[in-house]
Each structure stands twice: as C-alpha cells, then as structure tokens.
C-alpha cells in the first residue's frame, strides 16, 4: 500500500480508487493528482476494507467487477464499517442496466460513472462529491439518497 496512508499524513484531499486493472488506476490517479488531490490506488476490495482507522478519504471510486470480493459487496461492507460508512462511494462500471443502478444504490453507493471513463465527467463528479462531504449522508436501507443540498 502506498506510503501516503502513513499516520500523520494530510488526508484533507485524499481520494481512493479501487480497481484490479492497473491502467484504470493510473488514469484515476493522473486525473485526481492533476486536479490537486492526493490519490491512493488499491487493487482489491479487501485492501480498502483493511485501511487503517486514521485514513479518511474524501471519496472512494470503486470498480464493480473484481475477483474474490466485488464492488457491490465491498461497498456493503464499507457501509457497515465504523469509520468509512459516511464516505461517498462512486461506482465505476461498464454495467448500465436498471438493475445494476438499483443495486449500486441498495448497497450504499452514492453515484455511478460509466466506463469507458470520460475524464471531464469524472473530474466533475470528483469535485461535486468532495465539495459536498460536509453534508453527505449515505443512502438509507431502502436505497434512497439522503444527500442534502
């Protein structure tokens, strides 16, 4: 895991990306860093669940299709965890069926960005969610957004 998660680092603008494809992580990292964010890339759901308590990202980008622990299950477990249950989670996926969108919200996802990644849209969503952190609340059990404007 990157050195950036050491105790005492400044996590004020920390964004985490979780994707098993190195190309996708590099793209996320490049976009986030160019926009002034600190970025940590992780290649599995297990790694994000194992983040130390002192690591408080502003946003998590989460791929859905990953071996062993997929994005849906990772999100569900993050929402149950104590310290990351209120961090916005944006799914990145090539899936776009109505069922998939509903499932993203049902497990506690905040947003949904389609792959292939449109860099401008990703940057827009990145800024939107990191700017709204103070008023963000994860979806409730019924999958309804409760984010306040």
């Amino acid at each position, binding site marked *: 895991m990157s050195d950036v998660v050491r105790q005492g680092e400044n996590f004020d603008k920390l964004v985490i990306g979780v994707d098993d494809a190195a*190309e996708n992580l*590099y793209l996320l990292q490049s976009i986030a860093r160019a926009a002034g964010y600190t970025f940590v890339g992780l290649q599995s759901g297990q790694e994000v669940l194992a983040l130390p308590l002192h690591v408080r990202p502003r946003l998590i980008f989460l791929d859905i299709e990953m071996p062993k622990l997929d994005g849906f299950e990772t999100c569900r477990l993050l929402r149950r965890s104590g310290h990351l249950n209120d961090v916005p989670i944006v799914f990145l996926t090539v899936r776009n069926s109505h069922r998939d969108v509903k499932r993203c919200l049902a497990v506690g996802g905040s947003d949904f960005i389609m792959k*292939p990644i449109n*860099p401008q849209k990703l940057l827009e969503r990145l800024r939107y969610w990191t700017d709204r952190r103070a008023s963000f609340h994860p979806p409730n059990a019924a999958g309804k957004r409760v984010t306040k404007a």
Partner: protein
Amino acid sequence: MSRSPKSRARGRDLDPSCLAALASVLPAQSLRDYVALYLTGTDERIAGLAAAIAAGDHAAAAREAHVLVGTSGSVGATELCARARALEMLCRNGAASDEAARQAAAIAAAVERSSAALRRWLEAQGAAAPERG
C-alpha cells in the same frame, strides 16, 4: 465536409477525440505514460484472452473482455471496445466456443490496428512506444 471511408475506419481504430479529452485534464507526460501502460496491459490481456478461449474457460474470457471494454474505450479504440463488449456478452450468455473464438480473433485484429495507431501517436509526441509483449 464528410470523411472518407478510410478515414472513418481509422477513426474506429482510434478516435482522436478521446485522447484530446484526456489531454484536456492530464499533464502531457501522464497521458503518454497512460498510453504506454495501456499498450503493455492490452498485450497481456490479449494473451490472457487467447489462453482462456483455448482452454474453453468462458468465465475467464469474459473477465478479460470486460476489462478491455473499459480500458480500450478510454483511449478511443472504438471498434476494439465494441468487440470486447460483444465477446463479454457472448461468454456470459453461454455462446458456442467457435463463436467466442471468432470474436476473440476479431478482437486480436482490432488490437493490432488500434495499438499501431497509439504507437504512432506516442512517437508523434516524441515518446518511445513500449516493447511488444
């Protein structure tokens, strides 16, 4: 002015608007590094895809194709992206092995064309293209 058929075909190999969109948010060196990483990763995925098809492992082939959909679409390899999406669906829907093998061969050919275009783009940027896998 309408584009010639050859020009349209080249556009499906590599849609330049995708690289332009990336260039609008990324530093030039990051974009070059990303393209180089994509080329290396795609060679590995094509090898993995061929091995999965040869072994009749459609679940593994679908996973490789799924990743290719996202990565190839981001750099503008439009035809490759569409073919990878089609193969992923075929594999998930239990298509016959020969049908999946035909689509995988078409994907390999699309990779050749799009990767050649990306290598030319890298060279035009003054960057060395990575060694073929």
